[in-house]
């Protein structure tokens, strides 16, 4: 369950990063335009995660949900930074 919730948060935060103008500018992915229907997953994924966690065990649900959010945020930030660095290097080459 932890892994699934973590994946859902990763998807949600990745969409958030990809749709955020400041994140696009920082990473050099300015031309990235996501279809509108994808945006809804920013909300659907975390809520699904919360529902799954609560369904499995109410006592651990909030801990797992918040804990996986935190770690997914770090992973997405590191992934985004790596991606932008890779793009920079490719540009220089």
């Amino acid at each position: 369950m932890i892994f699934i919730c973590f994946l859902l948060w990763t998807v949600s935060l990745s969409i958030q990063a990809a749709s955020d103008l400041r994140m696009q500018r920082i990473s050099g992915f300015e031309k990235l335009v996501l279809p509108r229907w994808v945006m809804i997953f920013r909300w659907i994924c975390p809520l699904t995660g919360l529902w799954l966690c609560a369904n499995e065990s109410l006592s651990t649900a909030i801990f797992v949900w918040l804990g996986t959010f935190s770690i997914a945020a770090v992973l997405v930030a590191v992934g985004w930074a790596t991606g932008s660095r890779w793009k920079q290097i490719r540009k220089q080459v």
Partner: protein
Amino acid sequence: MIPDTLRARMGWLHAWIGFLSGLLLVCVFITGTLAVFDTELTRWLQPEVPPTAAELNDAALDKMLPSVRSLLLKGEKPFIALPSERDPVLRLSYHDGHEVLTQPFAPQSGEQIATRQTVGGTFFYDLHYTLRSGSVGITLVSFAGLMLLTVLASGVIIHLKALIPDLLVLRPFASRLRAWLDVHVLASVPFLPFVFMMAYTGTFLHTRSVLPPESYVSLAKEMLVPSPSKSEPASPDRQVPQLPSLPPLLHAAEKTLGVGRVGSILFLPDTILFMRTDASGPLRTREHVDFSYDSRFVRHILLTSPLTRAQQVMEGIHYIRWGGAGMRWLYFFSGSITTIMIASGLILFLMKRRKTSGDRTLFQLAEGLSISVLVGLPLACAGLLWGNRLIPQGHESRINAEILVFFSIWMAAAFFGFSGCFIKKPFEAWKILLIAFSLLTVGLGFLDALTRPGWQPMHAPTVFAAVDLIAFCMGLVSLQIARRLS
């Protein structure tokens, strides 16, 4: 001239309180993060104990009784930890005032497993909440917890506008100050729920240290004047009653606590306590069923007042012994990243002041202290693991030798760090200690392979593989930081 705004005032508070308490908080968080896996670390530190074992046999419990008796004769309060998901063997343990020292026993036969003596993973647990200084240490750590809450609140006020927009921003290849600031924010904002929760529950557990029932003056006097030892002195003519057969009492206790819910059996001078395992639920109830030494039921203790319930919930959340391996990993990673948050805060504090105050003795002292806790302590932790495997198994006072290795390495690292700062070569000091840490952690897997009986290159994931792999990853990160320092 800095405008006198709430944000500016909070910035000052965040920087200064953060730095002063951060030096202690780094130690608390490093050791606390390690203590999440204290049982597993004890298993790593006793490699002779097999990673798997057969189910518990009732007769095995009675076979341990002579060993229990010998500890009772020494004036200890021994307890038997029953096999669990985290540790498949029986353990006879006692608290020596700092750590819980254990001897493993086979759960099928009750035979003692010949293994090395070690401080075990509870060494980090003791360091985490008492700093090995008893009530003085607990008070210091509790006040550091309060400081952490203050620093967090001021941090949130400073960063309120950019809390959400900056959530995923990381620019490791930007200017050095920008990069560290991003690391600090990234390690803080997503982990705010975790840090608030740990700081609040941790401080709550020791409320009496912060708000003592007696005056602070009498508390300070108590700290200054050493109180007589509370442990019973060993006496050659100590009388210990005949120990009863344990399985019938265990099954009787299970009727009250539930089958499989007894975690340990504690032997007090006049009663035997069958304690509910902390893994059985979110509330750390410490519920127990007591029997006398002639097998009579004495009492069943379960505290249910609102205040004790609140205490049990806080302890349950803080210790997370009930959440399973997945939850422990979540706590471990969250604890590691919170350590990075505090560490990056300390580094930012130094970076911002290096240009203006780099030549001042106070600055050099601050940097020396930072080196001692940020690199010295992890180096000492890695050194303890090396010491455990390299000190001969038959060494007379092995436990003390391990502790000595830990503190010697920490002292040496601190001395090296301070020297580097006072001769104005701080970067060299950082770099050399980081490389030393990398060498110890990257090499830990090889040391494990060479010194663990029955090592195999391909085996199911065990505590050994997990410790070696985590150490290896930490080594690589540390090497990368050292590389970027140049």
